């Protein structure tokens, strides 16, 4: 099996993709298609993919669908209160399921298909500018295959009064949901986005690329909750370009899917700040790969990265955290941490922090730990009357909850807490 089936199906699909009349877009898609044709899906031979096997993507042919079957229970469960809701079903924006009535002032929301009709020149200014098809062939794939997505733009100096929740829902078996989100936060504006991935069918493939442009002195907080169905394949990349004095904070909660790869990259201009937090929980045969890259391109940037993972049974996780400090990026201040808790001797973590420093006056550190629950902590709880299983749950919960605690949005925090507690029977917090 190869990727030929995808390529063979492409011409028929291409006719239905938005922006048919835009020559520049056709060229963009063709270029992505060719890059994908040349490389196929990434394989273990690619350095940045050496621990993550994507063979399943070639074994099943995931196909786009225009069906928009809803799943009310999932929408209700994952809807975050006090946020404007934007729902994409099987990769297409569905206004009827969204709640646009009380969008906060200062934000423009369009489906990407709409944006290509109404403001193609603007889309052209941003599409492919935060991540190139050469990043890897899943980005190239998305360039060619994306069928819809969102255009979100926050006007200069506007501080959004409520968050925007982007809820990706897949309801068709073997569906391919390929979307592209373009998020522009203009100068001195501030926005919060909650991105949620869920599905109610067995096997499907999410291929999502977000490009974020955080302009001068603007701020963007991005929460991602990946709670895909248990046999789903998930690729989600968020690529940010931060202008001078901007702030980008990303919180990455990876709980679901069979196989997930998440990219979070940011390029930092002068005195911009970036904070990346993550929590991955994997059990059974789940595989979760988190790939982050922070590019300090200019002086005085600050970056903080903290990822935690809990792995049980035969689960496997990958953490690749790369921080690059360019020659020009003097006075960079960067910290990276990755902590892992292994609950089973069959679980595996491949963790690889990488610091590449080309400047000579910087403060950079990184640390990694991999461990098990401590016997002395378990005994301490037992000596207070708590049985061993509950003690294990309490300690594991406490380890993971540190990341949930960092979430400032209280509605989202409650949702995350519920998800977390559902995994640990018999404890109440």
């Amino acid at each position, binding site marked *: 099996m190869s990727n030929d089936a995808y390529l063979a199906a492409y011409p028929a699909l291409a006719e239905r993709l938005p922006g048919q009349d835009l020559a520049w877009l056709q060229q963009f898609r063709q270029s992505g298609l060719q890059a994908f044709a040349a490389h196929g899906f990434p394989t273990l031979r690619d350095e940045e993919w050496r621990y993550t096997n994507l063979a399943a993507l070639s074994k099943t042919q995931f196909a786009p669908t225009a069906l928009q079957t809803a799943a009310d229970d999932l929408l209700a469960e994952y809807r975050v209160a006090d946020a404007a809701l934007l729902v994409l079903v099987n990769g297409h924006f569905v206004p009827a399921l969204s709640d646009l009535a009380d969008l906060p002032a200062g934000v423009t929301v369009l489906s990407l298909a709409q944006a290509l009709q109404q403001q193609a020149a603007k889309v052209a200014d941003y599409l492919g500018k935060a991540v190139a098809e050469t990043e890897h062939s899943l980005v190239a794939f998305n360039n060619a295959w994306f069928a819809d997505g969102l255009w979100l733009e926050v006007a200069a100096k506007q501080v959004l009064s409520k968050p925007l929740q982007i809820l990706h829902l897949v309801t068709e078996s073997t569906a391919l949901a390929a979307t592209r989100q373009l998020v522009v936060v203009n100068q001195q504006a501030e926005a919060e986005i909650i991105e949620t991935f869920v599905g109610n069918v067995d096997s499907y493939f999410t291929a999502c690329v977000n490009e974020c442009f955080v302009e001068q002195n603007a701020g963007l907080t991005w929460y991602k909750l990946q709670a895909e169905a248990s046999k789903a394949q998930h690729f989600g990349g968020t690529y940010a370009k931060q202008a001078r004095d901007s702030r980008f904070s990303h919180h990455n909660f990876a709980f679901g899917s069979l196989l997930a790869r998440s990219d979070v990259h940011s390029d930092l201009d002068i005195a911009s700040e970036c904070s990346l937090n993550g929590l991955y929980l994997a059990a059974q045969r789940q595989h979760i790969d988190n790939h982050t890259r922070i590019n300090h391109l200019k002086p005085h940037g600050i970056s903080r990265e903290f990822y935690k993972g809990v792995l049980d049974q035969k689960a496997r996780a990958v953490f690749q955290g790369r921080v690059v400090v360019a020659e020009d990026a003097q006075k960079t201040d960067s910290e990276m941490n990755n902590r892992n808790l292994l609950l089973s001797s069959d679980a595996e973590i491949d963790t690889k922090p990488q610091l590449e420093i080309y400047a000579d006056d910087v403060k950079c550190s990184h640390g990694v730990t991999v461990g098990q629950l401590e016997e002395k*902590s378990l005994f301490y709880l037992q000596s207070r009357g708590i*049985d061993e299983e509950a003690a294990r749950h309490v300690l594991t919960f406490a380890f993971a909850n540190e990341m949930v605690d960092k979430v400032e949005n209280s509605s989202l925090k409650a949702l995350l807490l519920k998800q977390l507690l559902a995994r640990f029977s018999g404890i109440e*917090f």
Partner: protein
Amino acid sequence: MLSIKNLHASVGDKPILKGLTLDIAPGEVHAIMGPNGAGKSTLSHVLSGKSGYTVTEGSVTYNGKDLLEMAPEIRAREGVFLAFQYPVEIPGVSNIYLLKAALNAMRKHKGLPEVDAMDFLTLVKDKVKLLQMDEKFLYRAVNEGFSGGEKKRNEILQAAVLEPNLCILDETDSGLDIDALRIVSEGVNSLRAANRSFLMITHYQRLLDYIKPDVVHVLADGRIVKSGGPELALELEEKGYSWVEGQV
């Protein structure tokens, strides 16, 4: 209350306790003193059920039941409390959560319903005052970033909330300055009751100035080599442990 008969215990192949016998009646306070390596901590660990020790001979009967047969959490629910020599830090778990979970575990064991939230808060705040602690302590992670004195006070706070029948204090006085020692001792003294017994393990006689024991035992080389009243502690202080070690 507690009856230890000819207790032998080892760590790996190394015998530590070598025939220890001790009886504690309800309401009594017993102090066990002894040099480093005598087996003091091993005794507290064996009584509380910590893994890593093998009992090779002897028995421990607690309120008529075989204590050694019980899992650590069952011992706790039956009213055995160990104040740790080195209390463990548990990041992410607040004191108040631990207190409530522990108290409810005891109550469930006794067939009582869960404690009412308001009653619980009132109870805990009372005890916090008793130990002269700040209420903010309750919402901090268990022992995380606490000073030595705060950790020991926190142990006594737990005892005060859980109201055990047998309280084992494992070197609770070690490392405390005189003010902290006074507060901890007042806490312990306030817990003394006709149906509650104490086993205080200590290296220093000073503790006994603050908590008056009924009986003082000297532990050396895994056995009790001498027992007496409070005056024994003073004699020990004066003559040093070499005095009793010479008698083994």
